[in-house]
């Protein structure tokens, strides 16, 4: 299979959906003439024109709200946030207008909108630009959230998100844009359902549950652990909401030990929810307490050494695995 970058995979997904459905348009800061702040929309303006690839001023609340309004009358907007840290300026549109409309209108107005862009800490961007927003958005019923970690997942999930009739957040990763991986040939339609996790590596002794930026470090940790004769299974959630609980339970029932490695902060983070679900459903299957590796609970420092100390890492993950494996 050909290998392409995560960035190009997203670009292909956008181009294919724009080509397929004239109601789809892309709107955001620098998406058109600049070809995207991270070049995800490279070439789309030339191909689809300024009617459908639309540069906006720096007005996140305004253009996110425009997307919701356009979706109410039948268009299928893709709204790019230059980073999800900036989506916080549009929080009201994303959590109040997009997901509530269906209920508030008694089922009359669904909002088929995709909000996408990089999410999570990148590299030395400081506290305001390093937010991992998945745990915030996961608290709002009506939203769906996916977190692709590979080029293949990025393409397949984004295409599915655009076709979904509900508001979907596609949380990409700046650190992954240049990563490469196998993706089906361009002639072959690639759709990956929301709410379906994927085993990225099989193992016997422990399940590492991860998503987005923590997938590569989970795979690195699993490889290192193999040398110490601990066989780790790596389960990539791919979607935060809906959550593939059956896949989680199946893996845990097999390994009886779990570490959740998440890119957000520990307090009310994604891992807390997953821990609750596992102990609630299959408490008897657990041979050890569930461990979590996450960010430290502090605003992100700029200093590189301190930033690394805040972030989850393969080393922290290996230590957590060893602790619950009593190794």
């Amino acid at each position: 299979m050909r290998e392409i970058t995560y960035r190009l995979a997203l670009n292909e997904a956008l181009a294919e959906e724009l080509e397929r459905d004239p109601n789809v348009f892309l709107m955001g800061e620098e998406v058109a003439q600049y070809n995207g702040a991270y070049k995800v929309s490279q070439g789309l303006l030339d191909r689809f024109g300024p009617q459908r690839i639309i540069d906006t001023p720096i007005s996140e609340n305004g253009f996110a709200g425009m997307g919701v309004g356009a979706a109410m009358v039948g268009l299928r907007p893709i709204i790019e946030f230059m980073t999800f840290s900036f989506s916080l300026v549009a929080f009201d549109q994303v959590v109040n207008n997009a997901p509530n409309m269906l209920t508030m209108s008694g089922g009359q107005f669904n909002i088929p909108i995709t909000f996408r862009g990089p999410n999570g800490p990148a590299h030395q961007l400081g506290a305001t630009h390093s937010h991992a927003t998945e745990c915030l958005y996961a608290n709002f019923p009506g939203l769906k959230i996916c977190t692709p970690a590979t080029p293949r997942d990025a393409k397949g999930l984004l295409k599915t998100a655009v076709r979904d009739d509900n508001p979907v957040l596609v949380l990409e990763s700046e650190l992954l844009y240049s990563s490469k991986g196998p993706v089906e040939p361009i002639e072959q339609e690639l759709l990956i359902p929301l709410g379906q996790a994927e085993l990225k590596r099989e193992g016997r002794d422990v399940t590492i549950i991860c998503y987005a930026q923590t997938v590569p470090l989970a795979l690195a940790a699993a490889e290192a652990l193999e040398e110490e004769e601990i066989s780790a299974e790596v389960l990539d959630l791919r979607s935060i909401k809906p959550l593939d609980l059956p896949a989680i339970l199946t893996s845990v029932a097999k390994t009886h030990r779990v570490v959740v490695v998440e890119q957000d902060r520990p307090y009310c983070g994604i891992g807390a929810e997953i821990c609750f679900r596992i102990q609630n459903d299959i408490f008897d299957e657990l041979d050890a307490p569930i461990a979590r590796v996450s960010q430290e609970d502090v605003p992100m420092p700029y200093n590189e050494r301190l930033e690394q100390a805040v972030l989850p890492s393969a080393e922290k993950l290996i230590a957590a695995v060893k602790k619950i494996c009593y190794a």
Partner: protein
Amino acid sequence: MSSPEQRDEVEMLSLMLLIRRFEERASQQYQAQKIGGFCHLYIGQEAVVVGAIAAIRPEDYLITAYRDHAHALARGTSADACMAELFGKVTGCSRGLGGSMHYFDKARHMYGGHAIVGAHVPLGVGMAFASKYRGEDRVTLCFFGDGAINQGSFHEALNLAALYKLPIIFICENNLFAMGTSVERSTSLQQIVHRAEGYDIPGHVVDGMNFRDVRDQLTEIVNSIRANPHPAFVEIRTYRYRGHSMSDPASYRTKDQLEKYRMDDPITRLRAQLTREGKLTNEQFDAMDKGAKETALASVKFAEESEEPPLEDLYAYTYVSEATVPTAAGAQA
């Protein structure tokens, strides 16, 4: 503009009466604790939305804030569906799930009913964007109060609409108070219409107590937008006779001010105009008013007798059906 049919003006007066009698009933039912949550009445402002409706086509888009009962009634949503919504019944215009502040009626192009001040103004811009995107000549009417003009979303929305030359009329229903805070205590500009200049959007001031002024000025603006898409801003000066919501005694304003506006009542004014011109008799007016009162009373009965939304529906409207989402089987290439 061409002179509208006499029949139309009488019909519009009848609609204003229906709105007022409906709201009076709603007020009474709220006090009887049949209606929960907040309830913001429109009494005094009827000429604004009815004048606007008289200037547009049924397929034009309309979106408004939380003082929305009149906007739904003006679009043709039945009094029954409106009252049932206040009662939280499944026969309500939002199945009892929205309440007073979240009226929706898709079939009649009533796009809500939005309760976060200013947050729906970008939505209106998005709807206008969609009309232009599809090459339609629909106009979007986006209503909001004088309280909304100090929200960031309002300013972003005006800039975007002007930038993309979208067919939208921003209608500021200036009733002088954002809840209990007067315009002079909240807004640096005392002439709200001047806000439009900052975005290079043409601004207009309209007498909101005069149905004909609202209709005529808006008709001209609508015609101009249909010919060549652009945004417009209209400050419609009006007054609400009641408090901000049912729980507000409105002690922040004087009896004299209220009386001054009551003397200029929009229903009385249009009635007098039509009577003077020989287009309406007292008997006709009395019959219309009686009809409006009966419709409002009947809507209470309808609401009382309607069912609550079923408990099984609790999760029915969180997500739309999965039918259009690719299945696991279908997706594995």
